[in-house]
């Protein structure tokens, strides 16, 4: 009829239901986690910045080079013209005829000679044969059948272009040094919103059905936030409808059951009457338990705290089950708690121990805890791992009962602020430890 997904008295034992909070140092670990989206965003932005710097660098490098070459070429050709005049016997003013401004014969580099070929020219050639020593621009032409060439120095130009490349590299690195931390910072608000969505989903998982992200952004994160919110709304509605259904079913069963209980008590003694009364009683317990669970599920139950002598209450509760139970009380503990809820817990634990375990069933009471121990085969592993499930009694030997008792005990324990821990002992037996909240107890 219902699945054990309800949060209130839910499936999980108390230890598992503790809300996960970020431990200290988690923020730091999150910062350096290489899988974080923050580093992926930063890497993408850095790569984009690098690509852009490279593109601009190549463009600038290339256009500077083109300009340098054309200036160099023009200079070399001017020199060549002057040299041609000189070669023809019109030395230019101020030049020593013994040191001509041109070269001929073997002094002309082979590359330049190949470039000129059989043409009359002029041709130019950029000479970077020894880049460490500099660069120069050659111009050559054939004058009256003789190949002549001039060389103009371009070392300064080469070095200044190299300097420009270097500066562009530095600028790119400096830009990255600024962009990377800025990206990390800029990614933070986005990541925080994402983390908030995750945290909200976790809270809903732990039973806080009213948790919402309440994001009002129109972007994709806003979209996932509102999707989570709507999912939570739908989930809560579904859950409430199921809870209402359980409560309604139990309520509706009560009216016919009331007449049935009274009528059954009027039957003349006999085997059939005994059977009817027994089954009516079972039905009645079931309906009562369902109602109790539906109230616990709604989560509005409040403890009515009184001063309670723990030993007397536990002894009386155990006795009222009518089953042989050893109660051991240490001292005369007095606690402030809700006696009716505590009675429900003890009764359910003792009944459970008798039903599913083996005698002797022992109850030990001290200042703040009640331990119910039996000597059967212990709780099934599934129950210890996932907590009690409604109408799941687990193993075959747990045939009697309907698995609501432990659910009720855990739910009531939550209402009075106590913790119920279930465990198995060696060599045999199940142990349920109810730890009452500290501060509520005192010795009498």
């Amino acid at each position: 009829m219902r699945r054990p997904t309800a949060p209130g008295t839910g499936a999980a034992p108390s230890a598992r239901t503790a809300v996960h909070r970020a431990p200290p140092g988690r923020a730091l670990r999150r910062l350096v986690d290489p899988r974080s989206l923050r580093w992926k965003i930063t890497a993408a932005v850095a790569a984009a910045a690098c690509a852009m710097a490279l593109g601009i660098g190549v463009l600038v490098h290339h256009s500077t080079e083109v300009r340098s070459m054309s200036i160099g070429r023009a200079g070399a050709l001017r020199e060549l013209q002057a040299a041609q005049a000189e070669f023809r016997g019109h030395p230019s003013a101020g030049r020593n005829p013994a040191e001509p401004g041109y070269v001929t014969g073997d002094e002309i580099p082979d590359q330049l000679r190949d470039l000129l070929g059989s043409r009359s020219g002029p041709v130019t050639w950029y000479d970077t044969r020894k880049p460490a020593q500099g660069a120069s621009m050659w111009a050559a032409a054939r004058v009256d059948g003789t190949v002549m060439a001039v060389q103009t120095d371009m070392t300064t130009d080469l070095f200044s272009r190299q300097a420009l490349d270097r500066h562009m590299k530095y600028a790119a690195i400096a830009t990255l040094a600024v962009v990377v931390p800025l990206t990390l910072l800029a990614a933070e608000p986005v990541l925080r919103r994402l983390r908030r969505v995750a945290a909200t989903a976790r809270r809903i998982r732990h039973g806080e059905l009213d948790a919402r992200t309440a994001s009002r952004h129109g972007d994709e994160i806003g979209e996932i936030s509102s999707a989570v919110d709507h999912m939570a709304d739908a989930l809560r509605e579904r859950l409430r409808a199921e809870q209402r259904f359980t409560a309604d079913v139990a309520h509706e069963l009560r009216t016919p059951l009331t007449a049935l209980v009274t009528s059954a008590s009027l039957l003349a003694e006999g085997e059939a009457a005994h059977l009817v009364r027994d089954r009516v009683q079972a039905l009645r317990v079931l309906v009562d338990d369902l109602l109790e669970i539906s109230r616990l599920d709604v989560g509005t139950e409040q403890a009515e705290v009184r001063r309670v002598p723990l030993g007397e209450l536990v002894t009386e509760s155990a006795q009222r089950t009518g089953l042989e139970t050893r109660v051991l009380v240490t001292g005369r503990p007095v606690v402030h708690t809700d006696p009716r809820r505590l009675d429900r817990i003890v009764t359910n634990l003792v009944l459970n121990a008798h039903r599913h375990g083996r005698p002797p069933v022992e109850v030990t009471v001290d200042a703040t805890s009640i331990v119910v121990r039996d000597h059967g085969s212990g709780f099934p592993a599934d129950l210890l791992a996932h907590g009690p499930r409604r109408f799941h009694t687990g193993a075959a030997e747990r045939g009697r009962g309907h698995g609501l008792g432990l659910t009720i005990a855990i739910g009531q324990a939550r209402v009075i602020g106590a913790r119920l821990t279930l465990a198995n002992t060696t060599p045999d037996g199940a142990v349920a430890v109810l730890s009452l909240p500290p501060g509520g107890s005192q010795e009498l």
Partner: protein
Amino acid sequence: MPRHDSKPAEQPDGAPAPVHVLLVEDDEAIRRSLAMALERYGYRTSAAPDGLTGLEMFRDKHPDLLLLDVMLPHLDGIGLCHRVRETSQAPILMMSARGDSLDVVGGLEAGADDYVVKPVDTPVLLARIRTLMRRTAFTPPSAPAGRSPHDDGSVLAFRGLSVDTRCLEVRVDGRLLALTPMELRLLLEFVSAPGIVLERQTLLRRVWDYGWDSDSRVVDLTVQRLRRKIGADHIETIRGFGYKFRR
């Protein structure tokens, strides 16, 4: 839990007249089965299917005890309780079908003396009725306080409030008060232990014959009603413990 008790409360052929219970319940099956059960144990019953009929029958037949469902057509159990209390202090036992506790509080505030939750075991119902019908007895305090010098020792006086423990009469400033049996018994518990803190559980045990599994709001709400009648300053609330009657 069920205390099997087959002894009739009153012998049908015994000397005292059988206790007359007025049963107001809208569900016919419940009404008939309860009437049969009560008659089996020696009670005389009248039954009404709704609140207005119930009120009429109450006025006509003067029953000794009212057994009321909370949810009733025309006039609900709480309303009926109020109307009955205008003229009568007969014990009223409410039956609540809801898990919701609000109607229980409403019923007790309106003047019901106790409540049972449906479905109720017949022995439990009989025990409750017996408790409500029990003769009120007074145990004198070991150190009587506020004893008036003029009387024979049966009248206790406390600042305007006087309790005659023999005739079971309670007066405030000379005016005779009408108390329900449970209110009277609660008051007698208080005046027999003036100045002593009485825990709710103790009062539940002594006045209502309840154990740990009981609802202590019965005490709280009856104390409230008692305060309204005798004056608020006589009974002091001790938080987390219970109540104390001021000398």
